[in-house]
């Protein structure tokens, strides 16, 4: 730390709070953040692996959107992430730290897989209805338990939901070994590989169109639920202050339970989409950490489900791009993870510049004149 001298010397840089900033300007700052991140990444890429950064960026884009198939896979994965993020939104808005999306997605997936395996002789509409209901119920029950404990005994929901994830993983392992196919492979393999019962049908010739339709419907519905419904208002009040909620006559325990049921239900549905609409199999990595990544999606969007679309796409794009450059240039995963980290750092950092501004010494003197 440089100590001030006796002589008059102002600090070089000072931080001052901004007034409310207009929306376009705020987005401008975020854009500058992304551009700066790309520039910094360029230097890092060049310094470490001596590659042309523009080429690397090009192949990242190629990895995510290079072919039609790749584009659809990117869309599919973004929808998956978005769905979980949307599911987390009401819980986090209520300041209920639902770290258990991973487990809620898994049990939703297990329920879906069970329907696909045991009820494949059912007519398709009935089978789909069954899968949807089963996955929603499974996810909701998984979220209900921590909510009830929180309401009744004020247990810590962060630890509770987190530990429920491990239970879910064990439950999944159990069913994986039960449904093992072929015997000894320790995987379930693709379920109904030839008859495709319980698979999402292609709509307009697009295999993943239904994924987009379902998730976008949930996203829009959740936006309206949080913003315009009485339930959404209750969630906001409970999240801001429990005392105010009591004062307003809100039954906070009921709101906890109701909202977590909803949160778990949407996450369970995400498990249904993952199994029935994407992988057509179940394993302990069906959720694949997306239950945690979705927390970033929900928070960065400040629970605005429309903004979440953007963020989910960004994260999936970075992931796909990273995989592509890793295989193309024979790099290991760390380089791509560094790039991902730098970009996220700059995006989060731009929030600082949206709320604060810097004043430099010389500028201040100029102002004084």
């Amino acid at each position, binding site marked *: 730390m440089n*100590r*001030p*001298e*006796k002589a*008059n*010397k*102002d*600090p070089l840089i*000072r931080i*001052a*709070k*901004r*007034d409310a900033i207009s929306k376009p300007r705020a987005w401008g700052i975020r854009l500058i953040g992304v551009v700066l991140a790309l520039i910094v990444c360029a230097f890092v890429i060049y310094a470490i692996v001596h590659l042309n950064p523009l080429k690397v960026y090009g192949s990242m884009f190629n990895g995510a959107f290079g072919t039609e198939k790749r584009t659809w896979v990117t869309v599919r994965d973004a929808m998956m992430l978005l769905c979980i993020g949307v599911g987390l939104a009401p819980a986090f808005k209520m300041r209920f730290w639902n770290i258990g999306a991973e487990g809620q997605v898994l049990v939703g997936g297990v329920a879906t897989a069970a329907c696909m395996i045991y009820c494949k002789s059912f007519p398709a509409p009935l089978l789909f209805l069954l899968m949807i209901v089963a996955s929603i119920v499974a996810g909701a029950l998984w979220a209900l338990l921590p909510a009830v404990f929180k309401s009744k005994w004020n247990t810590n929901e962060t630890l509770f939901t987190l530990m429920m994830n491990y239970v879910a993983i064990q439950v999944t392992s159990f069913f994986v070994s039960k449904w093992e196919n072929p015997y000894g492979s320790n995987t379930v393999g693709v379920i109904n590989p030839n008859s495709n019962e319980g698979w999402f049908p292609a709509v307009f010739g697009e295999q993943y169109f239904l994924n987009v339709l379902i998730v976008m419907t949930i996203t829009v519905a959740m936006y309206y639920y949080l913003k*315009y*419904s*009485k*339930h*959404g*208002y*209750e969630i*906001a*009040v409970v999240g*801001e*202050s429990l*005392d*105010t909620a*009591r*004062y*307003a*006559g*809100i*039954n906070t325990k009921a709101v906890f339970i109701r909202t977590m049921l909803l949160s778990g239900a949407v996450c369970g549905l995400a498990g249904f989409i993952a199994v029935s609409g994407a992988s057509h199999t179940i394993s302990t990595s069906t959720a694949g950490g997306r239950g945690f990544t979705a927390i970033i999606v929900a928070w960065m969007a400040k629970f605005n489900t429309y903004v979440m679309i953007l963020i989910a796409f960004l994260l999936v794009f970075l992931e796909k791009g990273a995989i592509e450059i890793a295989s193309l240039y024979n790099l290991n995963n760390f380089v791509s993870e560094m790039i991902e980290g730098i970009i996220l750092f700059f995006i989060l950092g731009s929030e600082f510049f949206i709320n604060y501004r810097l004043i430099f010494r010389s500028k*201040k003197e100029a102002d*004084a004149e």
Partner: protein
Amino acid sequence: MDTEYAVSMKIITKTFGSVIANEKVSLDIRKGEILSLLGENGSGKTTLMNMLSGIYYPDSGEIFVNGEEVVIRSPKDALKYGIGMVHQHFKLISVFTAAENIVLGLHSKGDLNRNAVAEDIRKICDKYGFEIDPNKKIYDMSVSEKQTVEIVKVLYRGADILILDEPTAVLTPQETERLFSVMRNMKADGKAVIIITHKLMEVLAVSDRVAVLRRGKNVGILNTAETGIQELTDLMVGHKVDLNINRSPRGELTKRLSIHDLCCTDINGIPKLCDVSMDVFGGEILGIAGISGCGQKELLEGIAGLQRVSGSIMYTAPDAEEPVEIVGKSPLEIMRSGIALSFVPEDRLGMGLVGNMDLTDNMMIRSYLNGSSPLLDRKSPKDLAKRVVNELEVVTPGLSTPVRQLSGGNVQKVLVGREISSSPAVLMSAYAVRGLDINTSYTIYNLMNEQKERGVAVIYVGEDLDVLLELCDRIAVLCSGHLNKIFEAAETSKDEVGFYMTCLDPEAAGKEDKTI
């Protein structure tokens, strides 16, 4: 270099965004004097002093300490120049002892020598007349003891210039007097003491000079001996102020609440209310006096259904014959059973309003359930917000501004406006003018009187006895959870009420074997 002035601040300006907190303020503090910094809330007193203590950095202007120009970038720098500040909200670690808090953050070599520290603390205490146990944990301390620790902490670090931010807000009259005598001792020792306050009586009682701030500007520095309450008030507010509170005549009294044997214990089983019984009438203002934490909060929250209580509270609606029981009902049940109860809680942004929500959304906190639609009706709350803003002259950039961005007075206007709008039969308010400027305070007093004239039963929990005596018709004095006595406001005095606040009525104490 030795000069007469301990600190000189010259043309200091500080802005937060577009808000000017201090505009070209100049201020000199002499050695060996007590200077009062007087001003309404939001007039920039604390901001100005925070620039001396290194919390904020001025946009422009110069600061001289002992005649030398200095740059204060951090509280550490401030201490280097002998400036120490005791903040309004104490910055102590409650699981540490007094001594540990006092040495916290000081870099000394080797292990902490507790005995030496305790010895030093004792010396300081003896010199200025403090009483403090260095080994007592903060969580065992009363507010006044905590404040003493804060002051000793600053002195221990060698401060010659002490800034006390509203030190008396949390003290009883006796504790205040003790603090003042300590301040006088420090003054005799040649230290410069600055006391930030908005209580005029204290300015006159303790200070040598008084600097008045209004809207961030220094509007005058006066010798305390040559001024008086009226002059200071006029300077502070900027125009002539009528300091009398009207007490409208009592209307026809009708019984609204009949409270019987109300008891309540806190989470640790410690009684907070003991057998409180009283009647509350429509058409009068019932004042509740007492040292803070003597059951005022529990009484109001008990009536509002927010606190589990035993006993009975019977409510008689204006148009009903039969009284209904409130005890045992949840706030929602109270609302649904048509009990017209309004409550302005003490914690405005923590209970009465949601800071991050805008005015419209805050208007419907207690009425959002109206209507059978699952969707919110934002139209009528919006109209209500408009009406409150117009009628109570709320200063706000718009209806979609989060209320936490409003000033304290405007926040309170929003809250009181909403509560009155539901045309209550009983209006309860807790510390309704705490932290408000004089004009807003009078607006609130007038609103209370208006409600009383409409036949509303107003319960007013207050801390300023002068106001209670002028505004209320009856004053109930709580002491440690007991209802000590109910006075006719016109027939009692400040001293009498103050006496009953601090010690139990011998009669009442006789009935109870165990008091808190």
